[in-house]
């Protein structure tokens, strides 16, 4: 059981696509000892090429749309996207702004996304999102 659960230690690449930092500090809070997801082998990596999960925060500004797309293409399959925060889902408080190309699903329509709503979501909610992604990746692997 334990070896099965630890088979997939998810590596996460974090991209700030124009967020307000609120979600980003909660992601780091989830990594540090109070919530400590590193004990499951979940950790942030420095390159999308090493990642299983891409965690996007922010509503995707026009400047970042192209970069978001390129990061998704650089990540090897199987991959999932974790959208942290309300603005990645709908634009949040920034919807209707002239400098947004988002949300994420408009830029990468073919991606498998897991959404963590909240402004910002609590670290527990982010952990739950990662676990959902984890279950999905295990299913993909079985097939």
């Amino acid at each position, binding site marked *: 059981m334990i070896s099965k659960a630890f088979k997939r230690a998810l590596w996460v690449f974090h*991209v*700030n*696509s*124009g*967020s*307000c*930092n*609120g*979600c*980003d*500090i*909660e992601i*780091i*809070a989830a990594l*540090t*000892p*109070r919530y400590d997801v590193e004990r499951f082998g979940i950790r942030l*990596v*420095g*390159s999308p090429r090493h990642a299983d999960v891409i965690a996007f925060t*922010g*509503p995707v*500004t026009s*400047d*970042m749309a192209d*970069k978001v797309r390129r*990061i998704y293409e650089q990540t090897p399959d199987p991959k999932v996207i974790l959208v942290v925060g309300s603005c990645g889902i709908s634009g*949040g*408080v*920034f919807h*209707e*702004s*002239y*400098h*947004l190309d988002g949300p994420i699903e408009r830029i990468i329509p073919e991606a498998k996304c897991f959404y963590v709503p909240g*402004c*910002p979501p*609590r670290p527990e909610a982010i952990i739950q999102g990662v676990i959902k992604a984890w279950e999905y990746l295990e299913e993909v692997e079985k097939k």
Partner: protein
Amino acid sequence: MKYEVPIGPIHPALKEPIMLRFTLEGERIVDVDVIASQNHRGIEWIGMNRNNPVQSIYLAERICGICNFCHPSCLVMAVEEIAGIESPERAEYIRVIQGELERIHSHLLWAGVAAHELGFDSLLHYVWVVREKVMDILELVNGNRVTKAIIMYGGVRRDIKEEHISKIKEMLEYYKQAFSKLAKLFLEDKTIKMRTREIGILPYEEAIKLATVGPTTRASGVKKDVRQDMPYFAYPDFEVKAITPDMLTGETIGDTYDRIVVRLLEVKQSIEIIEQALENMPKGDILAEPKIIKVINQIKKSEGEAVGRYEAPRGEDIHYVKLREGFEYLYAWKVRAPTYINILSWRPMLLDMQIADIPIVAASIDPCISCTNRVIVVKGTEEKILTAEELHKLSVQKTRRLRR
């Protein structure tokens, strides 16, 4: 031979999207350029075209998730001045307490990030454990860990109750003990000293010339603090003094080490301010006008312009607001966040340093990119770099337009 190294907008050493372009000669940095605007979300435009002033408070909170009390309070200060709304004494004290709680959380967050940039990850984890204590208090008082949604025109939305006070006092005791340990870890550790002493120096004259603000400027020996120079809220009661590194070390160099010293001392200062505020907090109302519709109508009827100034954890924050009678939204809203000014100091700090010093020097001003990206000039696909004279001309034109 000279060569260029671009860093960003997405880079593991940067937590936020910004692009830096370095020109190098071997390991030596000879030129630094900053390319911003990746994080521009059009917040001011939304405030002037879509939101009523009360909604704009919550929008201002989302300018930056870390200093999410200072931006709305800055806006509220400006609007209150125009509309002539006065908040009760107790609300002013609660605002001070909230502001100082935010300063503690922000400075500890920064200390963790700085440790991480030096490669000292165990210290990052230790500092973030210590930080969770103030996050618990913020959650207890506000109901949310990060965004607070507490400030309102004419007061605050939630009171600090009796049962909260004992919890807050417990937290302050905890921080007093943690402070000595943190000071020892940061200031006496040999590695940290080697990586930060004499690195990224911002001399006094440069700090004045670039008009830097907050801990960045105070670490260079400039005694500048809005809480001391132009006290707002209940700050006149506390006699806050600007903190410079010579208070602890006896000398001011203006390097990265000094910026650590200033921030640590400010955490201590915040603890003292909260303690005093809890003791002297008067009883009474927390909101001048509880009906939001009435507040909106009062703001809609008022006309004029004002500037709000607030000492955010990163430095002086300024919001310029103009209201026009009968106009539903803010007629003009300009945000000048502290990092906007401080980012310019990267150049004098980084010149002649090594590539390996970039992360810690860049982090030492506590940059907040999401605060910074306000201005953008786009016309078709044409790229144009404006000279100082052209910028001045544009600025004069804008002032005239606003005056009309």
